[in-house]
């Protein structure tokens, strides 16, 4: 029993923090968020050179073969400064391949994910109120061995930057997962303006896209694979959100120490300091849940659904409060585009529905525990 990071994980954290601070300070975040895909191929290649992109990918495909605990360390640091990148999306596509990809599919995509030549993402959702398998209605029409897809996948993260999509659909009642490259005939991406400008979302329009046997993932139990991907998504966005919450807290603590009103730094007043203390208690508590949840992906999958929900439910509501409190504690400047704190507020709004909001996960926990 050891609930601590290794020395190597400490170095990894330092390295990512240094990289992010040097290569993508807030000025660069603001520049990138004005670009079409909020994605910099140069930054992406630099991340690849650092070994960050191949972190979850086995040696044989050019990666480092590390664990989700390591990946969570990375995401906490990239979340801290709101780094715009398809890091999470590509990691989830990686998980789809590791879980259910054929050797040919893995050989085709994983090396390209590892060295930064390709970006992947999930294209699962349809209805705005549905997360899981029950929300997947897209029905394929069979043409011999080929599944022909007509319909839409919505809320696809990094849709513009992605080279390949993990698409969920049905043949009859059976769920299927497939890889659809962006060049597939009949595929079109429509970008949708996002609340959090450092993030991108789009609709995947499938107009007669043909999915052959070689494109389909070989999951023994597609529902289980889907649930795993969603739970990994929970863990990933919780890690990003934790980092962002810590970032918001740090920005606000600095402001509270600097800003003087009625003769004192506003951080002297309990009305300010108690809310910041509560925010700190929340971030520390989320860490405990998150790190354990990440470890279950690596080591104890049976516990993953519960811990993914515990961590995401806490994060979703706590970061909402932290985002709002931190803007309010800034006073009027918190409402201006000039100050960074509003970017954290928007990230908190973004992360709430991603992979299920607080009530969604509390309902899921209640179903697990109470029946």
């Amino acid at each position, binding site marked *: 029993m050891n609930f601590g990071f290794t020395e190597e994980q400490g170095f990894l954290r330092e390295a990512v923090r240094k990289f992010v601070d040097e290569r993508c300070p807030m000025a660069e975040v603001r520049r990138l968020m004005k670009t079409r895909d909020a994605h910099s191929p140069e930054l992406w290649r630099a991340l690849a050179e650092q070994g960050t992109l191949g972190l979850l990918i086995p040696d044989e495909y050019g990666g480092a073969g590390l664990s989700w605990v390591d990946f969570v360390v990375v995401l906490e640091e990239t979340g801290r400064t709101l780094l715009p990148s398809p890091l999470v999306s590509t990691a989830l596509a990686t998980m789809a391949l590791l879980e259910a990809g054929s050797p040919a599919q893995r050989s085709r995509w994983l090396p390209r994910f590892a060295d930064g030549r390709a970006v992947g993402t999930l294209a699962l*959702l349809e*209805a*705005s*109120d*549905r*997360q899981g398998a*029950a*929300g997947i209605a897209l029905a394929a029409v069979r043409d011999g061995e080929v599944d022909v897809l007509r319909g839409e996948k*919505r*809320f696809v993260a990094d849709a513009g930057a992605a080279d390949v999509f993990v698409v969920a659909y049905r043949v009859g009642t059976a769920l299927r997962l497939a890889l659809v490259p962006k060049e597939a005939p009949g595929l079109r991406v429509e970008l*949708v*303006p*996002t*609340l*959090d400008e450092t*993030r991108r*979302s789009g609709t995947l329009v499938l107009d007669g896209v043909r999915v052959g046997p070689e494109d389909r993932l070989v999951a023994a139990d597609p529902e289980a694979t889907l649930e795993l991907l969603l739970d990994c998504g929970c863990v990933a966005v919780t890690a990003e959100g934790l980092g962002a919450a810590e970032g918001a807290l740090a920005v606000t603590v600095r402001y509270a120490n600097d800003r003087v*009103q*009625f003769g004192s730094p506003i951080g002297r*007043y309990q*009305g*300010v300091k108690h809310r910041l203390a509560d925010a700190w208690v929340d971030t520390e508590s989320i860490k405990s849940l998150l790190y354990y949840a990440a470890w279950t992906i690596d080591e104890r999958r049976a516990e993953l659904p519960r811990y993914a929900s515990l961590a995401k439910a806490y994060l979703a509501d706590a970061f*909402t409060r932290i985002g*709002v409190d931190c*803007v*309010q504690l800034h*006073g*009027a400047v*918190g*409402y*201006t*585009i*000039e100050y960074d704190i*509003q970017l954290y*507020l*928007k990230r908190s*709004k*973004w992360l*709430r*529905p*991603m992979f299920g*909001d607080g*009530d*969604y996960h509390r*309902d899921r926990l209640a179903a697990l525990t109470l029946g």
Partner: protein
Amino acid sequence: MDFNFSPEEQAFREEIRGFLDANLPDPVPDEDPAFLQAWNRKLREKRWVGFSWPREWGGGGGDLIRQFILKEEMSARRAPALGLDFMGLTWVGPAVIKHGTKEQKAEHLEAILDGRSHWCTGYSEPDVGSDLASLQCRAVRDGDEYVIHGQKIWTTSAHFASHIFLLVRTDPTVSKYKGITCLLVPMSTPGITVTPIENLSGKASFNQVFFDGARTPVANRLGAEGEGWKVVMGALANERSGISESTEMQQHLDDIRALAKRAVRNGRPALQDDRVRRRLSEMEIRVEAMRLTGLRHLTDQINGKPSGSETAINKLQRGILEFEMSELSLELLGSEALHQGEIQHDALGWHGTVIGGGSPNIQRNIIAERILGLPKD
């Protein structure tokens, strides 16, 4: 205690309803400038713009209860605001009526009622924050003119205003409250520069206003030199009836109920979710409490005991409600909350409203110290 209205008041209510039935299009084209101008002319004919202003200056000479009825009916039908120059009607006009010269009244009052002017108010300054009376913007007398140097910030609408209701320091040697003077300055005056401040939605709703030797005639001074603090405190009291706040929150509540009626959560109608239902009820409770608290203060005003710090009640309730409504509306949107849209935009916008009225913590300090008698920090 009597919540019945007199037959005359009831008749007035019917008159408004009849007017709205006959004149208000459905839906209300409230973004169409031509409609808004025409609408204002119709309201002017009824003397409903500046309803409580004296009739001799173009107002309606109405009492507070009828004003309440008018606002309530207009708001229930989502009619456009009563008048086009919000700041002019709420702040500037009443101050000019009370303290203005005959020339100032002639110049400004009718323009405000007709919506030909558009006023902004120059109070806040950088680094002054909540302590308004410490303002530093200087005006120095030079013959028949004041010469103004300094800066204002958080000036709403300055980027398209015609005039500014400006607080300046004319005497730095006396106590901070006594050295303040109020000026009525056209925004076209040379030496005034406006720099919009973008808010978090990327819109310019407020501004910095720089004064670099701008000159304005002494005739534009409202009230005596050094009496500016009194003038503005009177104007602040005008703003604080709390009635319009609750009608606005009632509209938000109607909107979020409509959203909840069409929303689905995880495959189930949102209105079957116990927690959604109770959160809507909780909002109903607070909105109704605000409405009735507003009526209590209205009664105090009618009885000549205008409420002071008590208005902090509805300001704090409003902060709680805006937060709750924003969060619930985003939750009801589900994944749609990731995208841009009107509801999402409003859910970010409430921060501006809440801070604009003085931050909740400042309100709490006021209550604790002035009303409960706790020691100052």
